[in-house]
């Protein structure tokens, strides 16, 4: 693998039949022992996978490490790909899982206090980013979301995956993806000041942690 540029990768969804057929060719060639095939597959999608990793984790070094780990994992377990989903879906799944694992591990460290997502954070955030570009504000606001909501928004709203594709990547029902996206957008609306009247903080359970009984985490999920 020598080129840095993406082979047809423009950071946007590339789930065409032709593209997937080519991806399958490369994965099959990798399985067949072609030493360059997986590298070429990575070249096709690394830009987009980088975007997913960065925005899911929110920190460049950690995102780079997660992306590398994920791609090595994909290399090693390529024979587990069953051909039922698009290759890009499979790759996204591995990258997102690697990112979420890393975020959760970081969050579990006792020396790294969890950010307080309730209270005055939105106001502080607006104040802190008052002179920055809107895009930077959005990036920062994204980073305040709980990982599951952030990942759903990254896939659907930023990467352009359909709800069904995102559900396949995240391995949750489509209803869960819709719920996570909507809840995440609602919190972004708060963070970005799009809501004139802040709801009662007690009603904004930022995070809606897994197992908290939030609808999107109910056993069995949604269709």
């Amino acid at each position, binding site marked *: 693998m020598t080129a840095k540029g*993406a082979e047809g990768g423009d950071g946007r969804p590339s789930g065409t039949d032709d593209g997937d057929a080519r991806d399958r060719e490369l994965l099959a060639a990798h399985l067949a022992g072609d030493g360059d095939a997986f590298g070429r597959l990575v070249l096709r999608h*690394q830009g987009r996978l*980088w975007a997913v990793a960065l925005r899911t984790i929110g920190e460049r070094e950690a995102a780079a490490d997660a992306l590398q780990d994920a791609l090595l994992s994909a290399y090693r377990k390529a024979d587990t790909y069953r051909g039922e989903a698009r290759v890009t879906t499979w790759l996204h799944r591995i990258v997102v899982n690697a990112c979420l694992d890393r975020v959760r591990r970081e969050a579990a460290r006792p020396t790294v206090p969890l950010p307080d997502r309730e209270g005055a954070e939105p106001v502080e955030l607006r104040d802190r980013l008052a002179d920055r570009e809107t*895009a930077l504000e959005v990036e920062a606001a994204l980073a305040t979301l709980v990982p599951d909501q952030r990942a759903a928004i990254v896939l659907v709203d930023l990467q352009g995956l359909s709800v069904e594709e995102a559900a396949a990547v995240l391995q949750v029902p489509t209803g869960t993806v819709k719920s996570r996206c909507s809840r995440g957008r609602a919190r972004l609306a708060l963070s970005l000041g799009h809501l004139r009247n802040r709801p009662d903080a007690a009603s904004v359970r930022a995070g809606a942690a897994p197992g908290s009984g939030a609808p999107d985490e109910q056993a069995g999920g949604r269709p």
Partner: protein
Amino acid sequence: MSDHLDFDALADLLAGEGSGEAHLECCPDCAGRLDELAAAEVEVAASLALLRPPELPAGLADRISAALSEEPPLATPAGRSGATAAALVPGTAASGSGRSDPAPGGRAATVTPLARRRRRGSPAWLPAVAAGVLLMSGAGIGWAVLSDSGDVESTAGSAAESGGDSAATAGPARSSSGIDYSDPTAVTAALPAVLAGEADAARQPLATAEGTSPEGADDPLARLRDPAGLASCLVAVLPPEEPDVRPLALDYASYNRTPALAVVLPDPDPGKVGIYVVGPECSQSADSLVFFTRLDRP
């Protein structure tokens, strides 16, 4: 206010996933909050649209490439790998050098080393019971099985006795088309005749590759015309997981101007066939698959 819908419940309603519609009908306050949230989410969507895909950091691609290059070649269980490759590649292939070969129907084809299609650790997958490798005799009629030693034991007629279908009992269709299987157009055109055993170059003028001799003393494929040589090759080609699979057709032809044998096999998809093109050295112990593709069955 505990009776009012909370923030998450409102968001779920916007997603079409909530269950608070009844409350909304009797609560103007919540209905108003919902409207406000809906408008806000539209603004959020507009804000998100401002984000551009981040550029890959300088050096990360090289770093990943270097990490991948340090990985050992993938070593997968042979049978599974072959099955996976077949599932992955509906009529596609790529060679060990990374070259992608055009295949009939406009699709590329994947080269799968035969070693990867064999069950690991069982090069003589033909078991003591000599389960079912077919061999067509020189006359194209009889069958044979290989014993553990690899010797050919004539079992002409055994397929019929065991209830094999007509194709099996008749043996595979056999041609010497001489066509070049790297030419998708030629393969597509010839496939019906190959399956019918009527693709001989002498019978119908098909593009014959240079260096491909007809049957004779200088025929590079002579060994694969010999029953024992063919049987040995088919051990490598036939999927070990599916002992009942029988070739539909054999075509003595070429690939990239090099003499080659095309073995046409049934595909799990009844509407398709699998074509395995092997080199003259194909045998039970020598992988020589040069091309594989799946095509629609004519």
